[in-house]
């Protein structure tokens, strides 16, 4: 193992940690913490293990079979179901991209004091330029590394001196207090949806093909998925813990993207505030690029177009046009003034509905000897893959009724 390889793995892990949190995690983890304290920490563990299981699987499929997720969705589910999945995932991608762009503009506003509506087009312009100019690997790194500023929430969680016994108790599912059962279940679904959002696997598997992963990258895939996402999950714990300590006793129900930053500011002063805002800015900015690219990857892979960030725009013209159009549509939607936090809640809940059709084809192909040869799923991967598929089906059925019954978690 050369130093260069170790460094590459370490850099990959760091960008995976920094890129783990998006606006969905920020919203659902702080709201869950402010409503139920530490009682839902166990759901984050389940969500993080789920995204590790399926990211590792789709990274392995991409490395061995050179097939990204949506290629498999169309082949394995047929044209009709594939088209339904495509439409659902494009709607969710657009909603998420819109919310993330709104989040970028809000962070710029909280940092600069300039008007929100002026900052929206500037934010989109900045993201388009970054997507156009930066090579694929640098998009992941720049946004992933600067997203690491979110570690300020881990420091804040420690400095707030939570009762660690109560925190530990939160990792065990059990009876709950502080809200109705329906609201509790709504947050269970939302936290799982935020952790296992489909665009992450679309982007991860397409990225593996973009980076031309082969058999020698199987180890890197395993380490990135397990350690990168595993440690990224710590940020979700931290967000829930700070909300549980600071917001729950005061009756603060976070309704704004600026509210989580208040926790870092309260604990660590102006430095904490700036780190939190920069971290949120790059986390949601990176996610905005990922969602627009995921939308373009899905379309290109479904219809068989040339695709890839590495291709010249003139060669992969329909792919390039697709991500530009997604940014343009998201810009129009953000300019309507709809609240990005509300939009995030809807996009996470709707994304849960699209989860089974995204993850089932991955599980099927990861078990197919024709594609995978000796690298098919082992017993452990199949056990967890099957278990999570059942879980995903259950939450997909429950997601929208729970959202309606609880008025979006308000009770």
């Amino acid at each position, binding site marked *: 193992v050369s130093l260069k390889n170790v460094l590459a793995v370490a850099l990959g892990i760091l960008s995976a940690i920094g890129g783990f949190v998006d606006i969905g995690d920020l919203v659902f983890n702080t709201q869950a913490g402010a409503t139920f304290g530490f009682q839902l920490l166990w759901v984050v563990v389940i969500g993080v293990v789920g995204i590790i299981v399926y990211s590792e699987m789709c990274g392995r499929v991409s490395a061995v079979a050179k097939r990204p997720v949506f290629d498999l969705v169309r082949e394995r589910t047929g044209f009709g179901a594939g088209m339904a999945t495509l439409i659902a995932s494009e709607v969710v991608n657009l909603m998420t991209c819109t919310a993330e762009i709104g989040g970028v503009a809000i962070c710029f*506003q*909280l*940092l*600069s*004091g300039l008007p929100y509506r002026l900052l929206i087009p500037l934010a989109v312009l900045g993201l388009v330029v970054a997507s156009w100019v930066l090579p694929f690997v640098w998009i992941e790194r720049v946004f992933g590394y600067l997203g690491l500023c979110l570690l300020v929430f881990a420091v804040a969680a420690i400095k707030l001196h939570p009762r660690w016994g109560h925190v530990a108790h939160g990792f065990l599912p059990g009876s709950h207090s502080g809200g109705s059962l329906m609201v509790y279940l709504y947050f269970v679904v939302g936290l799982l949806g935020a952790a296992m959002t489909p665009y992450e696997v679309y982007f991860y598997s397409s990225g593996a093909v973009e980076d031309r992963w082969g058999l020698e990258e199987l180890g890197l895939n395993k380490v990135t998925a397990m350690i990168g996402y595993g440690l990224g999950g710590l940020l979700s714990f931290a967000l829930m813990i700070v909300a549980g300590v*600071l917001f729950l006793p*005061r*009756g*603060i*129900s976070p*309704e*704004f993207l*600026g*509210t989580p*930053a*208040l926790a870092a*500011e*309260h604990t660590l*002063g*102006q430095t904490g*505030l*700036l780190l939190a*805002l920069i971290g949120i800015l790059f986390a949601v900015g990176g996610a905005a690029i990922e969602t627009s690219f995921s939308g373009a990857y899905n379309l290109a892979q479904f219809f068989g177009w040339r695709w890839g960030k590495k291709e010249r725009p003139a060669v992969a013209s329909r792919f390039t046009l697709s991500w530009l159009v997604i940014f343009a549509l998201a810009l129009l939607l953000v300019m309507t003034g709809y609240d990005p936090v509300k939009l995030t809640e809807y996009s996470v809940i709707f994304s849960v509905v699209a989860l089974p059709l995204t993850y089932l084809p991955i599980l099927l192909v990861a078990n197919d000897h024709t594609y995978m040869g000796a690298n098919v799923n082992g017993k452990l991967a199949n056990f967890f893959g099957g278990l999570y598929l059942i879980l995903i089906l259950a939450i997909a059925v429950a997601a929208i009724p729970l959202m309606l019954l609880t008025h979006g978690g*308000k*009770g």
Partner: protein
Amino acid sequence: MVFPVKRVLVVGVMLVLLGAGCGSSKLGAKALSQEAKSLQSQAAEGALLARDAVSGKTTRIYTREHSSDLYRAASKAEASLKAARTQPTLEPELRRLAELATRISTDLQHLGGASMDEERALARELQAAADESEKIGEALQ
């Protein structure tokens, strides 16, 4: 007797509009309790922000922009509470909540441009408003 379809539809639409109260709404105890919870949240967040501003933990820009977000939410709540109707037994709570919403939105509006002494006073007022909202909310449950 047979009613013409168009006339029935027109009457139906008018009844729906009347039922909707043309912009006002009839709130029950649960809805009022939710409003109290929202007001408590906005006031408590404003109080926390004001206290942190006094102790120099926050930046001027963040205080101004975030308090402005909170102000917009509180003034929206104020408008909807002032337009709302409720059962006669809940009228006192509705009035108290509408008054609280006015106080909270006024305080939050001032917070963005306040001096340190004013921030200190606003922190106290907002915390008192949060406590009062909490009490009303609990009484309604």
